[in-house]
């Protein structure tokens, strides 16, 4: 990877990771955890 490409991808990755914080807060406040259903387990 050349220096030029890295110089662009580092700030992009940094901003993306920070945007993930905001998105994470959105998902958390929207309660996106409701796919967890009642347990029903059997041993194979």
């Amino acid at each position, binding site marked *: *990877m050349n220096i030029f*490409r*890295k*110089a*662009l*991808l*580092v*700030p*992009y*990755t*940094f*901003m*993306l*990771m*920070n*945007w*993930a*914080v*905001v*998105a*994470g*807060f959105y*998902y*958390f406040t929207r309660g*996106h*955890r409701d*796919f*967890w*259903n*009642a*347990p*029903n*387990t*059997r*041993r*194979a």
Partner: protein
Amino acid sequence: MVEVIFWTSLSCIAYVYAGYPLLLMAWRRLARRPVHKRYQELSVSLVVAMHNEKKNVRAKMENCFELDYPADKLQVIVSLDAPTDGTDALICDYAVRGVDVVHSPVRRGKAAALNSGVAVATGEILLFADARQRFDKSAVRELVANFADEFVGSVSGELLLLDEEAQEASDAVGAYWRYEKRLRAMESDIHSVPGASGAIYAIRRDSFVALRPETILDDVVIPMGIVLGGKRAIVDPAARAYDASQDPGLEYGRKTRTLTGNYQLFSQMPELLVPWRNPIFVQVISHKLGRLLVPYCLVALLISNLFLLHGFYFGVFVCQILWYVLAGAGWLLSTRGAESPVPQFEFGQGEKEI
């Protein structure tokens, strides 16, 4: 007032990404706590939760059989969480080779799948892993050796992100990950890391407390419970797992899930924010909570800077604009030739963090 917002935001960002690492460096120099490793062969239960892992299941199982650890001391448990892609059919081949399979026909999520897997575990040590990453042959032996130290309750291995040439990735995600690992190594040397790598971490069997089914980050909740209980959660770089480096867009999806889990972590375990209850309060505040504040500080810094366009402040403003222009160019670069640069985040489908 604007200057207060500017300096507070700048200080917060600088502390999280530069001040805290410097603090850790000094702290480690003054108060390093070595781990007394001793190689031993405790019985181990390796628990892997899987949903749709058809493409990974064979490689993962073969990797488990190749580990340098006595077969009679290593129980492999696969906890299936309602797979729909044929993972359950593939795993049957391994059930006859001694792999214990727990199957849930109803989708319950990773935490519940881990609980089911642990329920059938017989080992003194529980080792958790994800389906995609591969263990180094000596990884189990290295992890187990740390439990000779009575103060150690949780041991995380080191996850290496490899590029196409099987070298440690040097791209932006690889650099970000190496920065993270340096922080964790220092935190581990001082006391404990606030979390583990979901791809490879082990705990004592008697330390396990069943996870709440809605738990997103088992690899943070379990080690932090152990730390609150008075033991250490360390990292051992000698215990290695390998994964392919992701492009920033895929890393974004994984990171979003992790950060959602961090919000949940503080709501589930508010004692983490109580200094006299949490032995690694400073680390949790600086590493976990600080990261949650940084994006809002970035916004506050930019807006407050708009009202302070003179002298030093103008220089900072130019640097900020340049940074965002580079980030935008990086986004364009990463999207070149890709249909969807930032995939939509599907909850519960991502790999776990670290």
